[in-house]
C-alpha cells in the first residue's frame, strides 16, 4: 500500500500510475481534488515554446508530454494551437534565440504573416511585428483530475478527501502508516511508502518526514473574462514574464499571470494594484482589454523547488521537477517527495516518481500511462425534458445528480455558477437540488461558502458590467432571497413567531 498525499494533478497522477502497475494506493487530501494549484491555473497545455530559451529541459519535457497527452487524454484537451506574437516594442534578438530554441527542442513552429494575424484577431495590437504558430493546447484541468480520480478508484484505489495528514509513523526507520484528521476524527492508514505530492504544502509534509526541503513558493494572478475572445492561445514573444499569455478556456478567456514570491501555501488576498498592473500588461497585447467583460480574478500558488538554494526571482527557478527519496537524505525509508514541474508534465512526474517507488517496493511493473487512454466517464447529457438550472453554462439537474459529490464538486465538474452571472441566478437552485440528495449536509452553509467564494473572485475586478452584475447579485441575495443575517431578513434565532416589526427584537 502506498499513501499519496495531495489530490492534485501530481498526486492523482502518481496514484494512477502506481494503480495501473498493480500497487494499492490511497490518496489523502486536506480538501478536494483540485483545491490547490491544479485547480487554479490558466489552463495552458504548454507546447514548451514558452521555455525554450530560459529553461530548455522543461521545454523538451513539455513538448513530449503535450504530444502524449493529446493521444491518451483527448477528452480533457482542446487542440487549439497557439500563436507567439512579437510586438514592435519587443526585442527582435529574443525572437532569433527563441526560434533556435524551438528548433533544438524539436517544437514545430510555423511563421505567420503579421498582417494576416492582425486581420484574423482584430483584438490584438496593431503593432504585431511577427507571429508564429506553435502546438499549444488547452487543458481542462478539472476534467482531467476527475478522470484520474475515477481511474484510481476503478483500480482499487481509495480517495480520502477532507483529511489533513497529521503524522507519519515509522518503525525502524521505515514508514508504516499515515495519520490524517478528517471530519469524523482521525484515521490511520497503514502503508509501505508515502509519496508527498502536496504541491505548495510539500514543505509542510516534508517536515513530517523530518527532512525539510527548500520550496520556492510564488503565486500567480489570473484574470478571467466572460467570453472566448481568441480561438487560440496567444503568447507574447519575449522572455517569459508577467501578463503575457491569453488562454481561451471553454467559454472564457484567461489572462495570466504574475509571479510574486511568498511563504504561505495559500495566496494572500488579491490587491487592486496587482490587478491593475496585470491589466496594464495585458493591454500591451490587447489595447481594448478594458472593454472586455471581466468575470473574476484568482490566484494559484506555484510549488517550485529550489534545489540550488534561493534564486533571485522565481522566474529563474526551473519549471523542471525533482523526485526526492528522503531515505537518501535525512528522512525515513519509504518516504518520497515530488516537487516542482508543470501541469503539462504531471504524467512524466508521476512516471518518474512511480519508477522510484516501485523500485523501493521491489515491484518490476513498467509504467503504462503513456499508452493507456484516460476517458471521461460519460457525463450525463442534457435531457430534453428538463430546464437548465445554470443557464450560463447550460447545466441541468440530471447532469448534477449524476455526480456523487459536494456542492463544490458539482461546481467544478459542471461549471455551474462559473459563467457570467457567477451564480446569481443558479446557486440557490443547485443548493436546493443538492439538499434533496444529501439532506444531512448543511445546505445553508454550503450555499454561503459558494457565495463567498464567488464574491472573493469578483471583488478584485469590480468594474464595468461586472460591477453591475455584483450589484445585482447582492440585491438578489439580500433583498430577494433574504440570504443576509439582519433581523428583517428573518434569519435571527430569536424570531420564531414574531411579527417583523414587533418590539423586543434586537439587532
Amino acid at each position: 500500500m502506498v499513501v499519496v498525499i495531495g489530490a492534485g494533478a501530481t498526486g492523482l497522477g502518481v496514484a494512477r500510475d502506481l494503480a495501473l502497475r498493480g500497487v494499492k494506493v490511497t490518496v489523502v487530501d486536506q480538501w478536494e481534488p483540485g483545491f490547490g494549484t491544479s485547480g487554479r491555473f490558466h489552463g495552458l497545455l504548454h507546447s514548451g515554446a514558452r521555455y525554450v530559451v530560459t529553461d530548455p529541459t522543461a521545454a523538451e519535457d513539455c513538448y513530449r508530454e503535450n504530444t502524449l497527452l493529446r493521444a491518451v487524454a483527448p477528452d480533457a484537451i482542446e487542440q487549439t494551437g497557439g500563436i507567439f506574437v512579437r510586438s514592435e516594442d519587443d526585442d527582435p534578438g529574443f525572437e532569433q534565440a527563441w526560434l533556435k530554441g524551438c528548433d533544438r527542442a524539436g517544437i514545430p513552429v510555423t511563421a505567420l504573416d503579421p498582417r494576416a494575424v492582425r486581420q484574423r484577431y482584430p483584438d490584438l495590437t496593431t503593432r504585431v511585428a511577427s507571429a508564429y504558430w506553435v502546438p499549444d493546447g488547452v487543458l481542462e484541468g478539472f476534467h482531467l483530475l476527475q478522470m484520474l480520480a475515477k481511474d484510481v478508484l476503478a483500480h482499487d484505489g481509495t480517495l480520502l478527501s477532507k483529511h489533513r495528514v497529521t503524522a507519519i509513523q515509522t518503525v525502524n526507520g521505515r514508514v508504516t502508516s499515515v495519520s490524517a484528521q478528517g471530519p469524523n476524527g482521525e484515521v490511520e492508514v497503514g502503508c509501505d511508502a508515502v509519496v508527498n505530492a502536496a504541491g505548495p504544502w510539500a514543505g509542510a509534509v516534508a517536515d513530517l518526514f523530518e527532512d525539510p526541503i527548500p520550496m520556492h513558493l510564488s503565486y500567480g494572478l489570473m484574470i478571467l473574462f466572460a467570453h472566448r475572445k481568441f480561438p487560440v492561445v496567444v503568447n507574447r514573444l519575449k522572455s517569459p514574464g508577467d501578463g503575457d499569455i491569453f488562454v481561451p478556456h471553454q467559454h472564457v478567456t484567461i489572462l495570466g499571470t504574475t509571479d510574486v514570491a511568498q511563504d504561505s501555501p495559500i495566496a494572500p488576498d488579491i490587491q487592486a494594484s496587482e490587478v491593475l498592473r496585470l491589466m496594464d500588461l495585458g493591454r500591451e497585447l490587447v489595447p481594448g482589454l478594458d472593454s472586455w467583460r471581466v468575470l473574476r480574478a484568482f490566484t494559484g500558488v506555484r510549488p517550485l523547488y529550489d534545489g540550488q538554494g534561493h534564486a533571485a526571482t522565481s522566474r529563474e527557478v526551473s519549471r523542471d521537477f525533482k523526485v526526492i527519496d528522503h531515505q537518501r537524505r535525512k528522512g525515513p525509508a519509504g518516504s518520497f517527495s515530488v516537487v516542482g514541474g508543470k501541469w503539462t508534465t504531471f504524467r512524466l512526474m508521476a512516471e518518474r516518481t512511480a519508477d522510484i517507488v516501485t523500485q523501493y517496493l521491489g515491484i518490476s511493473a513498467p509504467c503504462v500511462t503513456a499508452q493507456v487512454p484516460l476517458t471521461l466517464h460519460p457525463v450525463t447529457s442534457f435531457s430534453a425534458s428538463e430546464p437548465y438550472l445554470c443557464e450560463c453554462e447550460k447545466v441541468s439537474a440530471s447532469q448534477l445528480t449524476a455526480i456523487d459529490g459536494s456542492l463544490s464538486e458539482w461546481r467544478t465538474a459542471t461549471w455551474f455558477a462559473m459563467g457570467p452571472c457567477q451564480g446569481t441566478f443558479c446557486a440557490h437552485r443547485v443548493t436546493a437540488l443538492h439538499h434533496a440528495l444529501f439532506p444531512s449536509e448543511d445546505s445553508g452553509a454550503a450555499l454561503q461558502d459558494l457565495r463567498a467564494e464567488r464574491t472573493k473572485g469578483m471583488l478584485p475586478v469590480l468594474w464595468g458590467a461586472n460591477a453591475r452584475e455584483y450589484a445585482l447579485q447582492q440585491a438578489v441575495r439580500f433583498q430577494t432571497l433574504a440570504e443576509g443575517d439582519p433581523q428583517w431578513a428573518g434569519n435571527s434565532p430569536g424570531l420564531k413567531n414574531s411579527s417583523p416589526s414587533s418590539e423586543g427584537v434586537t439587532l
Partner: protein
Amino acid sequence: MSAITIIGQGPAALLAASFIQEVQQDCVIVADSEGSLPLWSGSFDFHAPSDDISNPWSLLDRQPLMLPAETWAFLWESLVGFERAAGIPVAADIPSHNWWTITCTGKSKSVFVVPQWQYVQKTFLPVWFIGFQGLADSMADFQCHTYQQQTGVDAGFHVLPNPTPWTPSWGPIRWASYMDTDEGLSWLLSEIQKVAPEIPKTWPILLPQVIGRRRAEHNLQALTTALGQMVFEYPLVTPSLGGMRIRDRWVWYLKKQGVPFLTGRAISVEKGWVTLADGRQWHSDHVIVATGGILGGGLEVMVDGRLRDPLRDTVVGRMPPGRAIDLYSWGQPADYGTPEMTACGSQCGGWDPNQDGNGGAMILATVWQSLCRTGIFSNLGSCNSERSVTHVGK
C-alpha cells in the same frame, strides 16, 4: 419642451412622474433602457425596527433622511393611491406594521406595501407550498424544509408535474403566459385538486409567482373560489412577474395620462438643457435623475476603481483598495450642486437596502426630496419642513 424631465424609468422615475401628474404639471420621462422593476417582485420595503414610523431607523446607526411621521404617511398613502389608480391591487390602507413574506428558498423577509397577489403574514403560520417541476426557481421541498427550520411552524409541499405544452425553455414569463390562457388555469386547478385532500383546509396554498401576467388576480380568485381556501403567490427571482405586472400597469397608466416615454441616452444636462446622444435637446425647469446608481448604470465603475457619473462626465468617487465595497454608500448626493438637478432612488448615496431592508422607503423619501426641490409642491406643508431635506448620509 417640458417643465420637468425625469431620466430613468425604474420605480423612482415612475413614482416621481405620478406625483407630478397628480399636480397637473408636465413631465417627460427619458431612458436608454428598461427600468429595474422586472427584477423585483414589487414590494416596497420600509423596515422599521421600531414601531414609531416617524423615526423608523431609530435602532440603526445610519439615518439617511429624517422625515416627519405625517410626511411618511402622506408618501405611503400616495404610493398606494398611484398603484391602485394604475390597477395594481394593493390594500387601500397603509399597513400599521411590517409583514413577513416567504422567499422561494423558504426564508422570511420583511415587506411593507405589497400587492395582494403575494403572500404575507404577520406572524408565522402553517402554509402549503406548491412547486412546478419544470420551473427552476420553484423548489417547494427545499422551501418547505427551510421555512419549517427557520420558523418552527408546520408546513407542507407538493410538486406538480409539467403540463403538456411545457418545454424546457419555459421560464417564469412562459409559465405566466400559459396561466393567462383558459387551458393553463384549468390545468392548474385540476392538478391542485388532485392533491387538495392532503392540504389542511385552513392553510393557505402558496404558488410560484407565475399565475398569469395579465390575469393573475382573476386566476388567484378563481382558484380560491374553486378550492375553498386561500391561494397566493410567493415571489421568485428574475424575471419577476410581480414587478412586470406593476411595470406594465404603471407605465400604461402614465402613458394614458399623457406622459411621454422617450427613448434615448441623456449625455448632458446643462442649465436645464437636456441633450440626448441622438442630438435631441430640450429645456426643463428641473431634471430628476433616477438612473439607478451602480446597478442602473447611473454610476460607472472604471477599471481603476474610479466612479464616474456619465451624465456630467465627472468622477464622483473611488472604490477603496481591495474594492470590498458597500455599493450603496456610493452614490450621488441628492443635491447635484446645481439648482435644476436632483438625484433620487438608487442614484442617491447613503442608503443600503441590502443591509437595511429599506428599498421602498429609499425610493419614496428620495423622490420626495427631489420633488420638493422643484417647487411644485410648495403648497404642501411637508415640503417646507426643515427636517425634510436633512441629508445625513455618510
